[in-house]
């Protein structure tokens, strides 16, 4: 969180008040991505993460069947929930961008920020899931519809981020990526449905019989809910900041355009002197 980097206690006590004034002006209010709200949100997130660690690692009991490995699930379930939430947010924001009445680049930035964080959490989900699978089922990977869909969602949104990085104007980026995000909404259910149908035909590697054995007692259930809340808070905090960073990046691009424009106009001015005034008629040029 954006605490002022130049505020070591020694410096503040010795710096005359006149010297701190320019430091304040060089970093005007609102230049960072933090606000009072996000600072409080950050503190609450940190606190809830600490609580998840405490409950997940210390206070909650080990599972009767799975033993200590059940603790992975607190992270796994929290991140998978956030990852799917992130992609729903991306899809909804993309639709909001394309819809004429809510057309705004803010929606595009929220979609992008959400997808980035979704991809990150999805990676954690897949990693923790396969580790847990190795411990509980003896295998890193199963061709279960949920697992496969999750992996495809991950790859699809990596592709989405690649489309965002194609360049062009902000509007072009926004339009292209919004359309790709909405196409993913068609794709993902089809992948899920087809894998599910596929595995139901070939019953051999079904996972269903093996997962549902987990009986959660009250404290474990509480830890799971706590983790879900904590990861959601983390997600919201990330998206708010990332979206603001993107706004600043876009503004920087615009600023760069202003500079390039001024540069280009100077070029015209100097050339104009050597070539005769612009819009003169019929004199020698090249």
């Amino acid at each position: 969180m954006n605490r002022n980097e130049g505020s070591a206690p020694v410096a503040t006590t010795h710096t005359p008040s006149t010297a701190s004034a320019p430091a304040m002006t060089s970093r005007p209010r609102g230049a960072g991505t933090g606000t009072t709200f996000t600072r409080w949100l950050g503190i609450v997130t940190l606190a809830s993460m600490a609580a998840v660690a405490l409950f997940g690692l210390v206070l909650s009991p080990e599972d009767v069947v799975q033993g200590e490995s059940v603790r992975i699930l607190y992270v796994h379930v929290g991140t998978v929930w956030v990852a799917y939430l992130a992609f729903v947010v991306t899809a909804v924001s993309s639709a909001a961008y394309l819809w004429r009445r809510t057309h705004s680049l803010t929606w595009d930035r929220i979609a992008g920020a959400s997808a980035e964080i979704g991809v990150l959490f999805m990676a954690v989900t897949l990693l923790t899931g396969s580790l847990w699978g190795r411990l509980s089922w003896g295998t890193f990977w199963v061709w279960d519809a949920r697992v496969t869909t999750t992996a495809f969602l991950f790859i699809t949104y990596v592709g989405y981020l690649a489309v965002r990085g194609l360049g062009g104007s902000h509007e072009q980026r926004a339009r292209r990526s919004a359309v790709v995000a909405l196409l993913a909404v068609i794709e993902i259910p089809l992948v899920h449905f087809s894998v599910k149908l596929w595995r139901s035909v070939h019953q051999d590697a079904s996972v269903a019989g093996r997962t549902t054995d987990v009986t959660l007692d009250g404290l474990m259930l509480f830890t799971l809910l706590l983790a879900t809340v904590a990861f959601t808070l983390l997600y919201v905090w990330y998206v708010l900041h990332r979206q603001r960073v993107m706004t600043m990046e876009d503004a920087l691009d615009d600023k760069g355009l202003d500079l390039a424009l001024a540069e280009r106009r100077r070029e015209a001015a100097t050339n104009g002197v050597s070539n005769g005034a612009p819009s003169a008629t019929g004199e020698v040029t090249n």
Partner: protein
Amino acid sequence: MAGGATSVWATARLVAAKDLRVERRSRVVVNQVLPFAALVMVLFAFALDADAVLERTAPGLVWLGTIFSLLIVVQRSFAIETADGALDALRVAGVSPPGIFLGKSFALAVQLFVLEVLLVLLAIVLYESELDAAGAVLLVTTLVPATTGLAFVGTLYGGLAAGTRGRETLLPLLLFPVVAPVLIGATRATEAALGAGGAATDEGWPWVGMLVIFAALFGVGGTLAFGPLVEE
């Protein structure tokens, strides 16, 4: 009246006829992509060695070969448009993007269909697959929606990647995850048609339904999305 006089369907017919005529003249798909697909089938045989495995996996190999070839055919389809700035010219001419999408999809589907038939024949010859009458009906019924679906998504993402930096690498990243349902569905249906691994013919029909849904969704989605995707 400049421009808008031609309907989406007329444009689609025009674009499809143009693409197919270009192929008839240049024979790139016939002379290069078909041999490539056949070569892939032979390479599969080298890699998988045992005859029993090949007979069992033949349907999957047919569709893997199709999807690899799809990538090349899509790139070829848009190379025609970008080689001399025709894609820009189409945009300047105000040619309706849905018309371009449907036209290019149709031409792509025709080429893919020929390719798939060849691959199935190769599987029967090389991998000792067998096809009875009921299986043949199922197989043809599978090919139509599967090919249509592949052509739709190929055109859609090919159009997006055309003219961008790194299109050769972006296209498979976008395309392959999307075609996964076709790979699964068409492979299962073809297994049923060929009786590979002891599959019964009527097991294939639910998959045909899935392929029809896939083609319909991406047909509608692509018609709507193509314009915004190729727009600058």
